[in-house]
């Protein structure tokens, strides 16, 4: 396999990177650059401007796998995510909408997720297309309202496994902020299935032919049934808009003017690594994404989706999740050769993991889970670029899910075995805590800053969640900040405060409108502890007082 051409693609990606940086560095009047612009921090990235319709572009699954397993596409230079605002947060966009991380969703919103209805309408389901080829048989149906759904099943021997994984993944990733399809758990009797007059099925050669009742039976023969003759499935509502094919985890779509940030440098795609680790979404490959051309408010633009969560948690979609999933890429040369040379006497510790037998949830565990070592199927370029600040952003959202909320989301998947359900909830809970414990302690976790009575209030998230002991104090240093020259001038000697709130330095509190100040905040740690990392906060004096406009964290 030759990836020389990829060099060209990477180059193109880099040239876009250059354009973005250039644009970001546009100098204001006077020939100097500003770190902060008047509308910073922006809460919204308007990447929904009207565009000409891009062309549908399917990816080669084989190429995608080989390219990412044996090549290194995209820009791998470590740099801060390019689409974050000056607070280090991810603005809402066609990729991501801040939900549970910004404002705690009520339970009923969490469990509703992206659903806008209750699934396929009562009455017969007309099969418009069947799929009996490949490893995942299923149908596409039209209900009595005319809505279309993809019907996906559990593998034989694992009733509820893939369908519940799909629904749980949908609900969590939606609450986090991603665009996902509406997925409903449905139970039905085969008699409900009718063939549309023009129903077709694709055979193993990719040829379409008229579908008949035998085809329906053959699909049903390959999937799990409930036992009383009925079937359980996920009804996945077909996404609105025009299917443009998957997106890559690197570069940009060349025919979408709104897509300007290289995907490997998008915060929500880098941070997806942490969410995927939490939920064991090892199949987080391009093939499980989908761009849709949608029209809203008279504007036509591309909305980017994550789809197909059948291979998440303990489910491998067509079988129980393999223990390798999350622990090793499909191909890792060094490991493979070592196994070969040692006759299998050497191996990674994951092969010793024990899983309780729960056919309805598959294979997942939390005891040996190490979030920082978690791996998807192949080295996803955005995941490889995930920096501590990206993972910190994601971990904050992961930790926003309470035990009660996790239980509520898992309940939506209607797992019938309470022991299995409890085990799954406990795994998700423990994995959440491990993800939080690791990534909230890689940078200083002082957060949720606000200026109020008594000064600057904040929370130390690692302390709040019990991952670190409260430090003896916080060391604070105030500066005047020259936004035009990116220079700091010390205003006061470092001072130590026991906890939040921190008093606002008088000079900063009385500054002129448009003046900038900076504050360096770090934990005071005991002697011999490693050098503490700091947060650098930037304030702008506005009409109403000091406004927080920027946060940077040492890594």
């Amino acid at each position, binding site marked *: 396999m030759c990836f020389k051409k990829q060099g060209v693609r990477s180059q193109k990606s880099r040239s876009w990177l250059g354009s973005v940086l250039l644009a970001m560095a546009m100098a204001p009047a006077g020939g100097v650059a500003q770190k902060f612009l008047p509308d910073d921090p922006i809460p919204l990235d308007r990447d929904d401007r009207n565009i000409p319709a891009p062309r549908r572009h399917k990816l080669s699954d084989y190429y995608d796998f080989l390219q990412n397993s044996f090549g290194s596409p995209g820009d791998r230079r470590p740099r*801060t995510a390019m689409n974050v605002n000056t607070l280090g947060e991810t603005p809402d966009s066609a990729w991501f909408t801040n939900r549970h991380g910004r404002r705690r969703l009520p339970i009923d919103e969490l469990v509703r997720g992206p659903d806008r209805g209750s699934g396929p309408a009562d009455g017969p389901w007309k099969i418009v297309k069947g799929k009996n080829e490949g490893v995942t048989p299923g149908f596409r149906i039209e209900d009595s309202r005319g809505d279309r759904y993809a019907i996906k099943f559990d593998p034989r021997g694992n009733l509820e496994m893939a369908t519940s994984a799909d629904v749980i993944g949908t609900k969590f990733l939606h609450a986090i902020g991603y665009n996902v399809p509406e997925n409903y758990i449905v139970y039905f009797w085969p008699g409900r299935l009718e063939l549309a007059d023009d129903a077709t099925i694709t055979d193993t050669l990719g040829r379409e032919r008229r579908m008949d009742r035998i085809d329906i039976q053959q699909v049903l023969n390959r999937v799990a049934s409930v036992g009383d003759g009925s079937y359980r499935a996920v009804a996945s509502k077909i996404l609105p808009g025009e299917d443009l094919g998957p997106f890559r985890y690197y570069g940009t779509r060349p025919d979408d003017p709104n897509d300007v940030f290289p995907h490997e440098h998008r915060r929500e795609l880098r941070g997806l690594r942490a969410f995927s680790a939490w939920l064991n979404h090892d199949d987080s490959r391009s093939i499980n994404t989908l761009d849709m051309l949608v029209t809203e408010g008279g504007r036509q633009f591309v909305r980017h989706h994550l789809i197909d969560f059948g291979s998440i948690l303990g489910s491998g979609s067509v079988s129980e999740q393999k*223990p390798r999933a999350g622990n090793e890429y499909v191909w890792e040369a060094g490991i493979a050769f070592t196994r070969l040379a040692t006759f299998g006497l050497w191996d990674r510790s994951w092969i*010793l993991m024990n899983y309780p037998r729960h056919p309805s949830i598959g294979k997942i565990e939390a005891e040996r889970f190490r979030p920082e070592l978690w791996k998807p199927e192949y080295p996803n370029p955005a995941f490889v670029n995930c920096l501590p600040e990206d993972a910190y952003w994601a971990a904050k959202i992961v930790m926003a899910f309470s035990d009660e909320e996790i239980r509520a989301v898992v309940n939506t998947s209607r797992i019938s075995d309470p022991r299995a359900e409890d085990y799954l909830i406990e795994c998700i809970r423990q994995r959440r805590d491990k993800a939080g414990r690791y990534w909230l302690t890689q940078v200083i976790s002082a957060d949720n800053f606000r200026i109020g009575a008594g000064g600057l209030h904040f929370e130390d998230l690692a302390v709040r969640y019990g991952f670190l002991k409260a430090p003896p104090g916080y060391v604070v240093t105030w500066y005047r900040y020259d936004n035009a020259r990116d220079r700091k001038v010390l205003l006061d000697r470092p001072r130590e405060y026991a906890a939040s709130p921190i008093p606002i330095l008088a000079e900063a509190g009385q500054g002129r409108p448009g003046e900038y100040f900076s504050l360096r905040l770090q934990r005071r740690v005991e002697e011999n502890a490693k050098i503490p990392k700091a947060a650098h906060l930037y304030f702008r004096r506005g009409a109403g007082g000091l406004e927080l406009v920027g946060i940077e964290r040492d890594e």
Partner: protein
Amino acid sequence: MMTAGAQTAGQEPAPATTRAALLESLREKKAQAISPPRRTGAERGLYEFRERRLLERFLAGWHGIHPKIGGLVTGSGFAAGAEFRRERLGGGLFDLRASTKFSLKRYQKQELQIGFPRLLKERVFVDFTFTRRNYPQEDFFGLGPRSRREDRTNFRLEDATFLGTVGARWRRWFTTGLHGGVVYANTGPGTDGLFPSTERVFSPVSAPGLEQQPDFYRLGGFARLDYRDEPGNPRSGGHYAAEWNYFGDRTWSLYSFRRYQTEFQQYIPFFNRRRVIAFRARASLTDTSPGQNAPFYMQETLGGSEDLRGFREFRFRDKNLMVYNLEYRWEVFSGLDMALFGDAGKVFSRRSDFSLSGLEGSYGLGFRFNQAKAVFLRVDLGRSREGMRFFFKFGHVF
């Protein structure tokens, strides 16, 4: 971060702006230079390969006719042929398969099969098969466990078998059936000039049936219990089979025999199924009434890629056979398993020799290249007292 970073050397001053305006200008700029997504050459090739289902079409062929590579007995040389296969004919009632294969050593095999696999909601199946073989240089070293490598000869085997089978799938894992048919067989001088023809070295006494080959009728039954997780590459479960057949000499009533075959396969996974101990025991016992004998060309053989891998194919031949295979398999990565194996077995003429004494042994190393659920290519290197053998086979050993 979306910050208006540091001063860029040599850059023309630009007017003060907002973040939103900056992003808008960036998008404007890209809008002036959009281009459709393109695939690189390698990507296009793989995309077309998948989308056009070239592999599937190659395997499925044209209008049901598709090429076949290999599939003849080991030692036949490179073999190729064609197969015609149509499924769900007669309103979904039956499948049809016909094939013909030839090898460089002029081996031939033709098969015709009409199957009704979906009767009574797929619980019952009926199958009619016709097989014709013409193998011009089958190896024969003499009968018995002490046959000598130096006595290698070859003979032509021609036979035609008509067989009908009716079976029931009681459970997904349990099948029973009955079959009956006729067998027409013929032997002749071998065509391998490197070794003598069998009739030059062996007599009808040491090779029963060498001079005269009767026609047979065949009746039998079988039962199979199969709970392997993936039959194409099992990591757990077992497969147990028993089969009984009676071959009745229709011509001279001299070569009638009964054959009892059992096979036991067990797969013991450990380390999360990344390691497997695979064990197989197989026995075949042939029983004849007084005055009857089983012809040498229908007796059991031992040696080769499927059982005793340190020996040549058909190295041992006799009325009875027992063979044991033990493999330690380990996964290198998803696409490759490796195996250390040991084989032991023997052929024997008398039931009283059905014991573990006198077993021939071999051992070796194997590479198994996997698809999603099956081994598609196997390379085994076996060693025995007679040297090293190398096998390159499509499909798993067991």
